[in-house]
């Protein structure tokens, strides 16, 4: 009887672990795979003609998921876009815990990947180490600023402060209570801090009377971007004390904030990274715009560079912008649009201080 019990428990546990493991890498990681492997070389660029192996693209997410409706997803879409253009396949590994960064990159190295994309600031050190150890493989680090350039590692970075500044400038004009809020991932990640600083300075730029209230998730990297309950509760706390336009920036945590604000009549929310009108439809009742980083084209462009062999290491500055206003097109007046255009021009000319980098 006891032996049977143990066996039952073990079998069940193994099944459960298997189910968990499946979702991590294999099953849904199926891909664009537009062309079968045999036809791939015909479409592949001339550079790897003597190599029958198709060009391999690997992507390692941060502890957020590849379907986080935010930045991991945007990067994955960029990888898929590049793969489709090259007629090859892309694969991803989702990082469950921060300690697995090295292992997950190592899996693609062993698999013979030609280009490995690591998504997120947290993977920066692991990516640099892997790039130094594997000079033949191209690495793309999304949100990873490169202090010293390596020839085979490009950091895809964005002026998040400018993106946040634009959104904040709009918020400063839209608020009626003169209180604008922000519910953010963690201050352990510099791009998040850049978004916040830009957002607050932008709001004050168009509305000197505005009061800015902002909160970071108090947890570590493991939970800060995956806690929609905290995001929603915190957004409510900001609404309860008068904020009427709130920026939700931080993966699923920020999405929780957006959905909470959708329940409040007359309040606006601002998404982040991608046009969250499409990725978080629950937020449509309040989503006036999103502070976008154009990650997808940035990743696709860098992968194409790697495939053509014309790859520049160092930092690659991606583009930012505001998402369309969708249902709120009528609320954003012509005057506001004109101001936003002026702000954008000022940012591009470097005439406006976004508060980032500090000092």
């Amino acid at each position, binding site marked *: 009887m*006891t032996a*049977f*019990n*143990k066996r*039952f*428990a073990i079998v*069940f*546990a193994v*099944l*459960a*672990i*298997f*189910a*968990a*493991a*499946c*979702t991590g890498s294999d*099953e849904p990681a199926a891909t664009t795979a537009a062309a079968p492997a045999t036809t791939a070389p015909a479409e592949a660029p001339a550079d790897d003609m003597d190599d029958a192996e198709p060009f391999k693209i690997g992507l390692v997410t941060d502890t957020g*998921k590849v*379907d*986080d*409706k935010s930045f991991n997803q945007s990067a994955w879409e960029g990888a898929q876009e590049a793969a489709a253009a090259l007629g090859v396949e892309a694969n991803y590994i989702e990082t469950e815990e921060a300690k697995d960064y090295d292992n997950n990159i190592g899996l693609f190295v062993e698999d013979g990947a030609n280009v490995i994309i690591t998504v997120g600031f947290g993977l920066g050190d692991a990516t640099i180490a892997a790039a130094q150890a594997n000079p033949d493989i191209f690495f793309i680090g999304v949100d990873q600023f490169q202090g010293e350039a390596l020839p085979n590692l490009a950091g895809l970075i964005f002026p998040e402060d400018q993106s946040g500044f634009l959104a904040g400038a709009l918020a400063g004009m839209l608020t009626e209570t003169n209180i604008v*809020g922000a519910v953010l991932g963690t201050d352990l990640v510099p791009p998040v801090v850049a978004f916040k600083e830009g957002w607050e300075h932008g709001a004050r730029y168009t509305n000197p009377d505005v009061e800015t*209230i*902002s*909160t*970071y998730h*108090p*947890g570590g990297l493991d*939970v800060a971007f*995956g*806690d*929609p*309950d*905290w995001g*929603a*509760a*915190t957004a*409510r*706390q*900001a609404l*309860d*004390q*008068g904020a009427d336009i709130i920026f939700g920036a931080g993966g*699923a945590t920020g*999405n*929780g904030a957006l*959905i*909470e604000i*959708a*329940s409040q009549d007359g309040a606006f929310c601002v998404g982040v990274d991608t046009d969250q009108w499409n990725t*978080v*439809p*629950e937020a449509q*009742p309040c989503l006036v715009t999103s502070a976008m980083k154009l990650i997808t084209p940035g990743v696709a462009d860098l992968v194409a560079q790697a495939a053509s062999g014309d790859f520049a290491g160092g930092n690659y500055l991606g583009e930012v912008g505001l998402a369309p206003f969708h249902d709120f097109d009528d609320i954003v007046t012509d005057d506001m649009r004109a101001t936003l255009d002026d702000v954008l021009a000022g940012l591009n000319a470097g005439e406006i201080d976004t508060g980032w980098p500090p000092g």
Partner: protein
Amino acid sequence: MTLIAGSDPEASRAKGGASRWTTRRVWSLAGAAVLVAVVWAFYAWNGAQTTAVLSGTVRAATLLVLGAMCGMIGERSGIVNIGIEGQFLMSAFAAFTIASISGSLFLGVVAGVSTGLAMGWMLAAMAVGLRTDQIIAGTVLNIAALGLTSFFYDRGRSLGQLKYQAIELGPLADLPVVGTALFNRPPLTYLALILVIVLHVLLLRSVWGMRTTAIGEHPGAAATVGIDVIRLRYLNVTLAGGLAGLGGAYLALEAVGTFTRAMSGGRGFLALAVMIFGRRTPLGAYAAALFFGFTTALQNQFQLNDTFDIPAQFVGMLPFVVTIIVVAAAGLFGRMRDPAALGQPYEVR
């Protein structure tokens, strides 16, 4: 077996001498008075912020107390349940999916509670029926829930409607200080509050509650007076799963309004700390849950105000430090102890 008590004089009288309670009552009342005074002072100073913090407190406490009640029914019956996290997650997934497909939040809640019951039954089947190690059984639930929900999660799915909205309870909602925090809440929060009170009475006063305590303290003795230990443990652990199921439904349909992977974020484990802090009574657990919720809301407020230069993490750490102190002090002075048969499988001889 009678589950709901008629008035049982034996049971009521079994509650310790009255003299020892009076000193404690005085202290509790004094503490409550100070608390009310402090809250009132803050309310007078800044009404909007105080209301926001109190609302955040109640909100964060709801899920914790539901999980804690699930845990305490199990522990009072002698079954450790560390699978609350998995029960939350699986129920949240079921509630969200069914609500999204059917377009009815209510059906979502039914699905969430049913899933919780099923998860509770699975724990009972492993821990009671098969006498597996209870920690392993709970771990199995956690891993299975994470794996299955991640596997079947359809990222394109959305609720297609607003989540549960706050319902104002007439003039009560206009009361100062507590009006918004307690009487302008969404429906599942009210339900959880009612359950806390009902379960408190049932566990401490009813025949079912006494029998539950009996099978957790000395199942052999309980069996000799005719209690079917195995059956009652099955029943209790399954029903307790329903509470966690309600917690999952609350998480997906009222707190957040969508499902994301691993969205329970460790709150099922936090609920166990709340349960111990609250001495395995529903009202105690609710007080503990409010304390945990309060520190969450307070650390947010510190950041929102940007006035105090205390790291938010320090405030966030407080409930855990207090829990450790409470548990350690309780252990040192012998004021609190686990049910005697906790964690031990019961074999019918």
